[in-house]
């Protein structure tokens, strides 16, 4: 080792032994520990964005004299949406949950006489039919044809499809908003708060209500159950004039769902 090198070691404070140990590591008899595969940092988890879908929606449209009705079953086969190019209940919506409620409404009276029809939700120019048997049989092809035929006859007749006493029951949007907000504040939100959830009233159009589920409800596997058995029941009990209730939550974008 040169004198200069030795002097620099003295001034830097490192001994020749240390240097030699680094340069020529002594092989140990001890077995080397296996490398922990989990010691490395996991790759950074990226946030998944949900893009805006620009696909055209299927609707029965056209300024034609002909009455056009399109049928679109839901993915789970439980419901079928009928889109008509004529108003059925303009600016309003109504749920016929059983035959008893159909009295005086030609639309409901006619459609409840079709076998396997369980409930009817009419909103503007659309009708959603739920069938008995849930997600199983019967298939919608034949049933939709029968419902479509009955609907066409009623629309062609040109008479009012919904009973006047139902129309008279529907209050102003202000009343609907006030009543629904009260149910959300006093019943619904205290109930879902235990799971870190919250419900927000986003829109009221006529007697149609749109909500958004946030916090622990967004993306939760039980959100559909909460919506149908909890929120729908609470709304309809407190405000029986409420028609369609829509959930506009983007559940796929939920970052804090209950049970996550």
């Amino acid at each position, binding site marked *: 080792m040169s004198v200069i090198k030795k002097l620099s070691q003295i001034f830097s404070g490192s001994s020749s032994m240390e240097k030699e140990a680094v340069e020529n590591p002594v092989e140990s008899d001890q077995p080397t520990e296996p490398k922990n595969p989990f010691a490395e940092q996991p790759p950074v988890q*990226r946030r998944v964005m949900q893009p805006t879908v620009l696909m055209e929606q299927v609707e029965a449209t056209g300024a034609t004299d002909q009455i056009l009705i399109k049928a679109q079953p839901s*993915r789970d086969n439980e419901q079928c949406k009928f889109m008509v190019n004529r108003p059925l209940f303009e600016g309003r919506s109504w749920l016929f949950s059983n035959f008893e409620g159909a009295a005086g409404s030609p639309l409901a009276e006619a459609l409840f006489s079709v076998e396997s029809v369980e409930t009817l939700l009419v909103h503007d120019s659309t009708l959603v039919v739920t069938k008995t048997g849930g997600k199983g049989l019967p298939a919608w092809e034949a049933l939709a044809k029968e419902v479509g035929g009955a609907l066409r006859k009623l629309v062609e007749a040109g008479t009012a499809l919904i009973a006047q006493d139902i129309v008279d029951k529907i209050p102003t949007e202000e009343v609907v908003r006030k009543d629904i907000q009260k149910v959300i504040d006093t019943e619904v939100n205290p109930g879902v708060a235990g799971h870190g959830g919250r419900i927000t009233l986003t829109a009221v159009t006529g007697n149609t209500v749109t909500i958004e589920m946030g916090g622990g409800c967004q993306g939760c596997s039980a959100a559909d159950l909460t919506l149908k058995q909890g929120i729908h029941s609470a709304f309809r009990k407190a405000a029986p004039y409420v028609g369609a209730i829509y959930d506009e939550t983007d559940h796929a974008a939920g970052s804090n769902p209950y049970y996550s």
Partner: protein
Amino acid sequence: MPKLNRFNIEIETGERGTALPVHFTINNHKMPLEDTQGGVGAGETFTGGFEIRSFAHSLTLVGPETGQWDIRKIKVDFDCEQNPPYSAVFGQLTLDETTEVNIWQDPPVPTWDV
């Protein structure tokens, strides 16, 4: 959920572009797109695809490793088993090193006249 045989993607880049290769994830596995054409520079159009032949629980387009990537439009053509081919078109968005975008769409629900 149907079996996805293949998908093709067309990406229109907006003002801020990025660098090739373009990656996607299928069920959280990151892969580069194949059969690629075009570029992902500002204003360019890129096409690519992949032979999946499996079930897509998730399908995403991965953002760049650095910087931001303005996407004007994404069109995805799906070829799924037991379904006629269908497409999905997505609107503008910006991806970066912390994001990816969901490009999976279930086959459309059948609709018919009654």
